[in-house]
């Protein structure tokens, strides 16, 4: 039995030991992905955790992953991030929080660093969801081109092209936000 098939079987049985092991194996990846997209540690934790809960619920209703648990979790985290931004858009009075806190005691540096980070984030969020997704996988998750292709269900050449367009769009957006 392959690793993925083994994991799926454990998930269906709801075996607590296997569940804990699967959770601990993938949580860091899902968290890092969400943190990159969101720039907020608490929301990233919520998103990553919710992805695991949905994984269990989906498997119980026969709608869970067919092949790869990792792909399913990252795909679900992508949708949860999208939902988060949609909800935030409906509540514009809530400013999106910053991930970074002061790393040294200099308030001026902190202010500049905070503003730059906010600008970077605005630039990232101005990309299409698919472009954000590929940058988060490549630069937030540190996945290789081939791994990214597997997670997005595309071939490597398509990822090269998408990555190119995403970076070109990022460059234009950075110019727009004067970063």
């Amino acid at each position, binding site marked *: 039995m392959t690793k993925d098939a083994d994991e799926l079987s454990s998930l269906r049985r709801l075996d607590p030991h296997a569940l804990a092991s699967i959770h601990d194996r993938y949580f860091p990846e899902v*968290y890092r992905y969400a943190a990159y997209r969101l720039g907020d540690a608490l929301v990233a934790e919520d998103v990553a955790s919710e992805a695991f809960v949905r994984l*269990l619920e989906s498997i119980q209703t026969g709608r*869970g992953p067919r092949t790869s648990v990792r792909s399913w979790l990252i795909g679900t985290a992508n949708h949860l991030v999208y939902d988060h931004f949609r909800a935030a858009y409906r509540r514009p009075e809530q400013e999106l929080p910053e991930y970074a806190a002061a790393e040294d005691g200099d308030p001026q540096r902190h202010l500049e660093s905070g503003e730059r980070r906010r600008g970077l984030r605005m630039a*990232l969020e101005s990309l299409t969801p698919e472009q954000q997704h590929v*940058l988060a996988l490549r630069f937030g998750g540190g996945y290789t081109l081939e791994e990214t*292709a597997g997670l997005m269900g595309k071939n490597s050449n398509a990822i090269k*092209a998408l990555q*190119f367009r995403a970076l070109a769009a*990022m*460059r234009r957006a950075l110019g727009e936000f004067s970063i």
Partner: protein
Amino acid sequence: MSDRLSGALHGALESLAQGKSIEQALAPHGELASDLRPLLEAATTAAALGQHEVPEAALLRSRKRTLARAAGLMETAPRPPLLRLVPRLALLATALVVALAAGVDGISTAAAQSIPGDILYPVKIVSEDLRLRLAAQPSERMSLEALYAQRRVDEVLRLLALGREVPLSFQASVDEIGPILWTVGGVPVRVSPETRVLGEILPGMTIEVEGLTQSDGTFLAHELHLKSFDTLGTVASIGPAEWVIGNSSIAVDDETWIEAGIAVGDLVLVRVRALDDGSRVAESILRFAPPTPTPFPPPPTARPVSSTPLPTTSAEATEEGEDDEGDGNSGPGGGGDDEGEGEEHAGEDEVKDEFKGVVQSVGNSQWIVAGRVLQVTGATEIRGDPVVGDTVKVVAFLQTDGTWWAEKIEREG
């Protein structure tokens, strides 16, 4: 962009990942260096958003929550399949008994007029379910499903007209998306911060709406769930369980309706069912014949705003690159000497479209040009400050969700 440039970019990114400086990463790329430099700078900036440390406490909290949910699911584990069927069979039997007692035509007429909350409504649903099960062909089944979906919408509209509050769900195509009010199949749907939105939903897609009809004539949504959408692409490979269409792998199963004779290289229209995890199953795959290009853009009224986001206007859908060569290691300085300087064009398997047309609508995230709905983001290059009524040149890419993203919109003249 050329495959050469995107390949060179990948090679340079690999060099950066190995700890080389931008100058060192650019060194092997000669004449492409000036094109690559701003992209590498953007990549460095993108990387600055960081790979985040994972707090131990966060992992422990999530593990605890996951295990608690698993325990809850074990307590409510589903009954064996046979037992689960009992209420359904009982309902079916009841419906048949009632049908026999009243005469099939009589019951059909009475039940057909019923709406949710009426005593005969379950009979209507069961008889529809029965017809669906008896459908011999996938095409017949799809037609019936479309018919019944429209009936559900009509029932919702009747309930809204009557001002009755009934919890139910229906499926329809999204006409418009607003901050608090959507229009779905003609039904005004109210969304709130508590509404769960599952999937990346855009106008033209088919969604399931769960919620409550309201006495104020609107439908209050508890959940909006992407069900299906149409997309266009070239068949790259055909497998028993999976097709590759454009850039995407799409699962097929026994219920997928596939037009006979489709081969690799054909342009096809795919109705894709979206599953909760983002994976997709094709409901139907039909050969697509693009309309004959016309010398002028269609008149502004050629297409309703709410139409599905498919390329059916005068634009020529440019299919690029059939030279699939796997992952083609065109990495650092790799290959590509046989091509001219990179005029921008889609990578392989991507559908790029360039067309001219009149701007009909300018929104924050959507524009309508020549009757076509375009997704516009901060990354879209907009030149010449076009306004409604201007003629513009558009470069757009087909996204995997079936919508078109505008890369560039430029005012003519």
